[in-house]
């Protein structure tokens, strides 16, 4: 399964699973990342942080963080 890092700009991903511990997942959840939520990748330049739209807000994630979120794309 791919992670959020692999999703190109403009694509929509659905969160399937969190990896890398409860602390990260809890912080991500507070910012709107929960199982089954739709994420729009606003910018993914292939290096540097990724910008996504989730639940009507814009959230920036480091690549390390994005690689802990397993997703499927539509």
């Amino acid at each position, binding site marked *: 399964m791919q992670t959020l890092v692999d999703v190109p700009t403009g694509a929509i991903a659905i969160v399937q699973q969190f990896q890398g511990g409860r602390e990260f997942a809890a912080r991500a959840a507070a910012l709107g990342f929960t199982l089954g939520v739709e994420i729009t990748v606003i910018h993914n330049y292939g290096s540097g942080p990724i910008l996504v739209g989730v639940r*009507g807000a*814009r959230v920036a994630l480091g690549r390390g963080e994005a690689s802990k979120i397993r997703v499927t794309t539509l």
Partner: protein
Amino acid sequence: MSERQPTLTIALAGQPNVGKSTVFNLLTHQNQYVSNWPGKTCEQKTGICQREGICVSIVDLPGAYSLTANSEEERIARDFLIKCRPDAVIVVVDAASLERSLYLAAELVCLPVPVVVGLNMLDMAGYEGITIEPHVLQAAMGIPVVPMVASKGQGVRDLVAAAAVAARNPQSWTPNRPEVQAGHRQVLDAIETLISDLTPHPYPPDWVALKLLEGDEEITAMMRMQLGAAWEQVHAILAQHDDAFLAVAGGRYEWIGRMVRAAVVRPKPGQVTVTDRIDQAATHPVAGLIILLCALGLLFYLTYAIGAPVQAWLEIYVVQAGAEWARTLLSAWPAWLVGLLSSGVIMGVGTVLTLLPFLLIFFSVLGLLEDVGYMARAAFVMDRFMHRMGLHGKSFLPMFLGFGCNVPAMMGTRIIESPKARLTTILVTPLVPCTARMSVVAFLAPIFFGSRATAVTLGLLALTIVVIAGVGATMHRLFSGGEHTAFIMELPLYHIPSARRIAQGVWQRLVDFLQGAGTIILVVSVVMWALSTYPGGEIETSYLAFVGRWLAPMGRLMGLDWQMMVALLTSFVRKENTLPTLAVLYSGGSSGVNLVETLRSQLSPAAGLAFLAVQILFIPCVATVATIRQETRSWGWTAFSILFLFVLSMSAGIAIFQGAAVLGWGL
């Protein structure tokens, strides 16, 4: 105004970027006082709100995304709500990102304190094409929802009134509460049954059960202690459901979804908003850097075009003229008193005064960038570079300000939410060479190195950057055990800047500086004057010279004599003091001694280089130290910073001189 005692206490909660501080300022005007949260270095703001016969005390909780113990802010907020039990809590939410900002509300309604929602930034939501019906939201949530545009002062009166009503009638408060997602409800019930008689006061058992299911470390530790042998049973259930926190968070968003569905109409997907369009450039890896450089260019242009001339003018026509005037006017007074006033007090006041133009410019530009919403983008663009130093992207702008002046840089670190990241930035920032330090280098480098002065200066700058990166990475390792702080950050919508809000922020910071750092600067200036004057009246025989001579053995390790050590010590008052002090000390009382010639004959290039390195890394000026104290709210960290920079700068000087000696260079 009547001096009534507030009868009700209302807490003000909200996620970051929802306009909570604007609401707090509107509610309390300047009727605020700042203290520390008990046992924390985080500041607590309390204010009195008096309007229309209502007099309530408002406690500004730190901005928090949730009430899980993810950060110090979140722990402080929930401890206050549970242990101090305010009469009501206002939660400010951002109408433009309603779902996300209602998450905190979803946690608050599970506590036994009445909640009132301040639905803020309705104008911003309108620009984004979102329409919200507050009364529908209110009916769904079962709690008062007050529509607001705090930046224009709208809705604040209704908010206080609604909060006061809710606070007086806690029994009539019947919110619609979120539930855990199906599949985990029985688990929650089972835990609650097991712990309900054993939960310590004042924690509500249902809330504790929820936090246990979420895996909250603080609550888990508390209950393990409390339950003793009975913990095994609870632990067995929790171990079977270690993914339950996803069901809890999911349940909250399901609740939010139900609340929002009927009340909110969103624009059709695919519509490109203003924020999207600006972010195309502002978060681009190349264009974003160019925009950031332009913003910084503007800042430094303003500093040099306006700040520096105004500062010079104040220095000559106010500070020096004032000292001169005091000496003439008070010539009949005892000499010590004239000295105290003209050299001690007026110089101390002068330090504060001449900093003001810089502070005004920095705070205004910083406030503008923050208010527009650009700050988070700057952090986004710089994060990849700052991470290598163990720092957060948000550390970049404040630290960069340090090249102008360390004082606003310290105060600028307030934009960093994580206390650890903020403390690291505060401790690293004095290593950024400010204009005053660089002016000393610019004067001395040509004396020691002639035509190679520029290369040496650039080398020293490179040295400071290497040291900053090294120290940043080390502190990060010490504070967080090397654990990489997750970079996950909200980028708020762009706002049309509000002059009133920016002015309020600038004013608040200036007042903080004058109250917090101003007094310390004045006192230290007077003490330093006394140390450099007494007992004999001359600096050569003063206590300061005594300390300098005492430090001389260490100075010899880097080829420096005691005069140079004293010059370093006087640079504590102001960095520019280094040169006049050297001039006085090397003249030995006789006039007509050329400082340039003396320095060239006294110091070898190796010693000169060591001195410049020490000077650039040395303890910052008193204004910066006072600001460290003000911003960390801790004398311990302030003392640590002084000691650390002293040891670091001396080690660098010794290493350079001894290294040169081994290589046989410049002796």
